[in-house]
């Protein structure tokens, strides 16, 4: 389970987060959605220990990230928006490297790598250097890297960004499988059709704070809109009006 409590973070003149709170439950897919600059990436970076919040805290399976970053990271698998592969390492070497950094080794690690190569459909390019990989291939390697230590919690930042139809479908199927296995999955996406297909819970953020949360059906009922994109637009408009009224 991933818990975010009243997170506040400021970068010089920019207030990135202003008391963001959310909970992502086990066995469910929670979607964090919001306009560009709403604070989604900053919140993720605090959860996976890259940034320290000015106030508030993030917990992964009850472990306070700021107090025990490495323990929280052991229980977390992350697919960042920027895939960031090493061009001179093969797909298999990427996964092995990150498996080793998580403490795995030997025949068991090799078996896990083989399983991931098969599960993610990487057999054709597993031993090729990453230079020249397509976006779909890059994503698969990044996913393999995030899953090799079998984390209970997953953070997926724009998991289908730039992928073709078949690759997007494969990723959605993988997320559904992980959910069925009881993993806690927190995703961010700008693609409302994908959010609609994948997410059990939604958290809508704007200007660094939570402006609405609930299941897609609850949010539809709350706004009176059927289409999730329309739900999103109405909630943002309402939040903006409230902010202006408060000023």
């Amino acid at each position, binding site marked *: 389970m991933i818990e975010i409590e009243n997170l506040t973070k400021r970068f010089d003149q920019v207030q990135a987060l202003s008391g963001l709170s959310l909970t992502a439950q086990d066995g469910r897919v929670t979607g964090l959605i919001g306009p560009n600059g709403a604070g989604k990436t900053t919140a993720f970076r605090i959860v996976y220990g890259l940034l320290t919040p000015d106030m508030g805290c993030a917990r992964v399976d009850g472990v306070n990230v700021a107090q025990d970053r490495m323990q929280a*990271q052991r229980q977390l698998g992350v697919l960042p928006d920027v895939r960031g592969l090493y061009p001179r*390492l093969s797909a298999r070497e990427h996964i092995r490297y990150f498996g080793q950094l998580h403490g*795995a080794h030997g025949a*068991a690690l090799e078996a896990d790598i083989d399983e991931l190569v098969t599960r993610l459909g990487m057999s054709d390019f597993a031993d090729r250097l990453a230079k020249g990989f397509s976006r779909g291939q890059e994503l698969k390697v990044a996913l393999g890297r995030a899953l090799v230590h079998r984390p209970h919690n997953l953070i997926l930042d724009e998991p289908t960004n730039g992928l073709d139809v078949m690759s997007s479908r494969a990723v959605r199927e993988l997320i559904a499988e992980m959910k069925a296995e009881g993993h806690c999955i927190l995703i961010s996406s700008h693609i409302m059709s994908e959010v609609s297909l994948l997410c059990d819970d939604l958290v809508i953020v704007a200007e660094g704070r939570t402006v609405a949360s609930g299941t897609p059906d609850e949010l539809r009922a709350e706004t009176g809109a059927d289409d999730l994109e329309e739900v999103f637009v109405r909630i943002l408009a309402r939040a903006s009006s409230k902010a202006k009224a408060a000023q």
Partner: protein
Amino acid sequence: MSEKTSNGWLRRVWIVLKKELRDHSRDRRSLMLALIYPMLGPLLVAGGLVLAGKTLQGDFREHAVTVSAVGIERAPQLKTYLENNNVRFSAAPPTRQAQEDAVREGRLAVVLIVPQSADGQGAFTIELLTNTGRVDNLRVTARLSAIVRSFNDHIADQKALAAGLPAGYATTVKIERTNVARDANIAVFFYNMVPPLVIFMIFLGGVHLAIDTTVGERERGSLEPLLLAPVERWVLLLAKALAALAFTAVTTVVNLAAFRVFMGLAASSSERLVAPPGWDVFAVIFAVTVPLMAIAVALQMSVAVITRSMKEAQIYLGLLPLVPALPGMVMVFSPMNPTDVTVAVPVLGQMLLINQLVGEQSLDPQHVLIAALTTTLSAALIFLLAAKWFRREKMFVLG
């Protein structure tokens, strides 16, 4: 589930180090810096040594020298004396201006002018048109002057004998020069260029790796996924620094070996050039430079982690090797003796020790210890600073 181990920090250092070494052994730029660049300096020095050996070394008197002369037929005795001393004559340009231009431009080494007033009997003055800005001209001029002085002594002796006086009567003091310097002087001058060039390569060898594994990783976006692994930040930086150190060590080995081989070949091209120091001396030079490699890598890492882009890092780190190499170049011309104080200055200490080794002098163990301690300690402090900067949020957040 994979087997888990205690996975201590040393094991994590080894995992990251191994990855960086594998990654960069596949990188053409890293390999060029480690294996090809270190041969260029030694090749240049050895080439210079061969040329200098041919130009400046050897017994000059054995070689004929050609001098352009004007009016030499007016001084037949002098002409014969010069010819007997291996001087040959060629026609000089017709005008004074053309003669001066030819010497100034290096087409002629020297022009010897015998005045029209000379009758070959009484005293007369000869003029030498020379160009002191050219080493080859200087040598011809010096040789010609020496032969003319010798001619004067010869004539004076003849006149003294004819007058019933002892030889040397007209020359109270004669000078006989005995050169005790080895003919290898010029070779030693070239060998003194080794320390600054070795130090230059030490500060260059791991630079690409230092940049690529820090600010380069940030630019490519691979640093963020790496920092998601449960690894201490200082462990990551230490492993990357060790990888840069390994490449620097390989660069230094190639550089020193190339110096020994190429300079040895150059020295063997002339019997009069002394051989460079032996392989044992070069092995000691390598050992002495280990703390220097550490401080070079620490400086590279600290600059790389505070710069905002690879380009910026390349600019700063491209200049870095010049800073320690410049005092070394100065010492080629103006040597400094090591003392307890001077060897305690990081980098300078190693430079002085390498200078001593190249000059085949024995090292004072106390100096070696002081230099190693102060430079290693400085490297550790600089690395700690780099590790502190590496923890900054700005270091690993893109955009």
